[in-house]
């Protein structure tokens, strides 16, 4: 099994107390974990890449568990999630797509079986690029209060032959949620949508 070469890892946690409105009794928390890894396919076209997705599974689970730990350690406290990838300039967007399966399933496993599709964003970009990682409710994609995003980036990555892999999680609704729509308290949580 080809090993995954990790150069660095970054964890970001935001505690949001208010945004000009009433102070939240418990701050809304939004966090992301980033791994900067070597892109084994950089600089050339490789047809058969899908096996690398399997190689990323242990890393995905490790990142998901570390992210839950950064948010206090209780998987039940996690209500929203998302994922993303930034592929360095010597790679292709398809390399970022290899993160869909290991990133998504790792979070589901670590959270004990979340139902909703994990929203994602990815791009090919240079060192220091920023990515807005979309976030939705873990069991019902239509929960409007939980639609959010977290901006992330790595000052010195991705280098041309690297990929930045990202997982994001949140602990609730936006801090001053009042745009209506489906509420978390109203979901059935069976089809991943409502």
């Amino acid at each position, binding site marked *: 099994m080809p090993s995954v*070469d990790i150069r*660095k890892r*970054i964890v970001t946690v935001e505690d949001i*107390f208010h945004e000009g409105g009433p102070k939240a009794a418990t*701050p809304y928390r939004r966090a992301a974990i980033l791994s900067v890894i070597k892109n084994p396919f950089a600089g050339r076209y490789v047809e058969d890449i899908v096996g690398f997705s399997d190689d990323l599974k242990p890393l995905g689970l490790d990142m998901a568990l570390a992210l839950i730990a950064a948010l206090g350690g209780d998987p039940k406290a996690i209500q929203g999630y998302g994922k993303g990838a930034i592929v360095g300039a010597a790679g292709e967007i398809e390399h970022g797509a290899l993160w869909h399966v290991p990133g998504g399933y790792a979070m589901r496993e670590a959270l004990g079986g979340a139902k909703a599709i994990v929203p994602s964003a990815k791009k090919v970009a240079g060192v220091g690029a920023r990515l807005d990682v979309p976030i939705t409710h873990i069991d019902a994609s239509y929960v409007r209060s939980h639609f959010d995003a977290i901006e992330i980036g790595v000052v010195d990555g991705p280098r041309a032959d690297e990929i930045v892999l990202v997982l994001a999680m949140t602990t609730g609704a936006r801090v001053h949620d009042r745009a209506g729509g489906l509420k978390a308290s109203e979901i059935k949580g069976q089809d991943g949508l409502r």
Partner: protein
Amino acid sequence: MKANIRKIVTFVEETRSEMGRAVTPPTRRAAAVAVIENPYAGQYVEDLSGLIDIGEELGAMLTERAVAALGIPGAQAQSYGKAAAVGENGELEHAAAILHPKLGAPVRKALGKGAALIPSSKKRGGPGVALDVPLGHKDAAFVRSHFDGMEVRVADAPRANEIVVAVAITDSGRPHPRVGGLQHSEIKGEDGLR
């Protein structure tokens, strides 16, 4: 005066390899960043003592968070730095009031010692502006392996009437330091310089 804190963001960076060469143990640095209301935005105020008090409050809180994010006892911290970014309706002197008179004492208290000057930077800027927090050895400013910097930024801050305040702490110097000078192992740590 107490700080009106909108959010707190923590960052942890762990560098595991550099130029393909393993960093063992990984170098780690953390920053805790508070986004606060600038009580003096939009007006010239002669007496900045409210912000000086806020500096003391944030020095304790942010150091505690950064050390907790690294998961080490405060005494194991090796280098530190501080910085502030003032939103467009404030002045650089507001950053100075937070950073310089009283922020340092609680930082040193949390870290056990801290004979060296805490290196600092400040600027005025808009939301998402990057702060390069300078880093220096906490007990001996001349330790060359620990001259470093950490970029932090908060995507939605500072708004015009806000200030972003950062404290950065490490448990190590740069990865693969090899430009000579005073070593961590050689310091006396009494005068803050060597």
